């Protein structure tokens, strides 16, 4: 493992992975999609994870996003080992602390942009009377104030992804996770999404981790993690 030297990050570690292994059993064959991953993410960092297709990027993101559990290893969130957390505690972290953006948007069909954006509020403490207001704020922030009532079918891919980003931001999460957020978009819409992430990072100081197989996009981050065959190959910092 090669690590480039640069000045150490003084910001606190918000997320730490220790010896993460994820094994899939397909038939009789056991396969390690992740094979001993160690990674620390500091507060306010903008990190990209890149690597060839099938290298384990999504698997890693799902474990970071608490959407899946590792076969072995530890995930520490703000210093706490989450492996002992109960299902409803994990749900609460996904709801409040993390904001996940998917490649396939994953919006509820036949449901308006506004309702999609405020869906996480249903499971949080925000009172019903404030939800619409928050949703409108978030959709305005992603430039969709004129499309509140549109259903996913009435929105372009770029617009759908922006609704998904508004949804990820609605509970003011500490960490934003995005798995190939531009993967299903044309280059113009993809550029817009990337610019928006830069803005969130620079102006609001949010911690952002995103996955891309596009080296150029990956290079826009502060730190680039290259993964291959389930192992971190190189980490570079600007």
């Amino acid at each position, binding site marked *: 493992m090669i690590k480039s030297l640069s000045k150490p990050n003084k910001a606190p570690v918000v997320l730490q992975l220790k010896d993460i292994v994820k094994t899939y059993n397909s038939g009789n064959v056991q396969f390690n999609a992740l094979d001993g991953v160690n990674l620390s993410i500091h507060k306010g960092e903008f990190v990209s994870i890149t690597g060839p297709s099938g290298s384990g990027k999504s698997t890693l993101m*799902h474990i970071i*996003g608490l*959407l*899946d*559990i590792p076969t072995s290893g530890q995930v520490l969130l703000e210093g706490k080992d989450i492996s002992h957390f109960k*299902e*409803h505690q994990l*749900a*609460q972290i*996904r*709801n*409040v602390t993390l904001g*996940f953006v*998917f490649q396939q948007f*994953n919006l*509820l069909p*036949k*449901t308006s942009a506004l*309702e999609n954006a405020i*869906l*996480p509020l*249903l*499971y*949080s*403490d925000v009172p*019903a009377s404030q939800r619409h207001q928050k949703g409108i704020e978030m959709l305005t922030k992603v430039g969709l104030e004129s499309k509140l009532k549109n259903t996913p079918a009435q929105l372009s891919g770029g617009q759908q992804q922006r609704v998904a980003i508004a*949804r990820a931001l609605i*509970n003011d999460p500490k960490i934003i996770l995005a798995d190939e957020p531009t993967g299903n978009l044309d280059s113009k819409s993809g550029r817009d999404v990337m610019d928006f992430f830069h803005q969130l990072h620079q102006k609001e100081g949010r911690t952002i981790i995103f996955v891309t197989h596009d080296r150029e996009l990956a290079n826009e981050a502060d730190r680039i993690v290259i993964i291959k065959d389930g192992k971190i190959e190189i980490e570079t910092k600007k």
Partner: protein
Amino acid sequence: MLKPSLEDLIKSALRSILKNKGRTILTSLGIIIGVTSVILLTSIGTGLQSYINDQFDKLGSNLVYVAPGKIFNESGGFASGEQSFTNFFKQSDIRKLQRGLGDLAIVFPANESTLKIKFGKKEELTSIVGTTPEWAIYRNSTPPEGQGSFFTKEDVSKQNKVAVLGFSIADKLFGTRNPIGKEVTIDGKNFKVIGVVDKKGGTMGGPDIDAYVYIPSSTFKDITGKDDIMSFSIKVNNADNIEAVKRQTKRILLEDYDKDAFTVFDSSQLLSSINSIIGILTVGLTGIAAISLVVGGIGIMNIMLVTVSERTREIGLRKAIGAYPRAILLQFLIEAIILSCFGGIIGITFGFLGSLAINTFFPAKVTLNSVLLAFGVSSAVGVIFGVMPARRASKLSPIEALRYE
């Protein structure tokens, strides 16, 4: 505190129901079919039963009948084989029975013969009953106000030629005209109409008592030349004494007649024989109703299974953005309950309207039990098949659920 609140869950479930109209309609259709058909079919069975019970009540209560021949078989059903309805009791039997029963009961004869009755040019063949005034009192056949009266003891002792008409025979002969005081001809002899009995409704499959013409028993003997008596009715003073009167009557008759030559029975016995036939019919109807419940249930199950992948992905997403398993289960449970109630209420409405429609030509009566049964079974199916896949999906990791195909 419950998160989401019950209000949020109901709203969320309603939104999902309204957004997926196809799914909603197909699911409720299963419940509607099940509930409607169970209510309709059982309403026919119970309607028939209560109709027949009503008819028996109209014939008069606390009555014991004595008829010639063997009517019932050993298991309580109707005896098969040739029945001889020949007049064969004697006038002296009445006196003997009345003496034997004393204060317990009043014995009165009923002789019946099918004869021609004529008024003007109109002629009908009908049942002429020779009896005593007790018939009017104990078999609910007293003519109402303004329709004359039944004949008296004096009419019997003087062998007066007077007749009381049943409702339908009066209608056939006289139409809108008032029959009271008019002369009719029975078997070629003139009779004066002195009363008309109110409509009683036909007994299912039994004699049409609205077509009866009543004349004094003494006069009956006179025109038919028969001194024999075909049957007796015995009015018992108290329902508790019915069994005692039956035993006593049998004992007295056995002194003169063979045990298979006559039958002593009361309406409850007749009723239970008829009810056992209806029972078989009801079992058949219930079977058909059960089939439609199953059909409805399979419909619900199918639509739930068809949408399971779509719903599993929805569950995956909800979990990914922070829903905990119980919130998901509750939402799906509430959705299923709303759908079941919606379908159930429509089904109950259809069932009621349908049985009202049937009621115009066939007795039908909706029972609370059938409503509860139908609603219970189909909503249980709806809830089980609505919640079961959700329960399974809520146990998957968010990512497994999101990827579900």
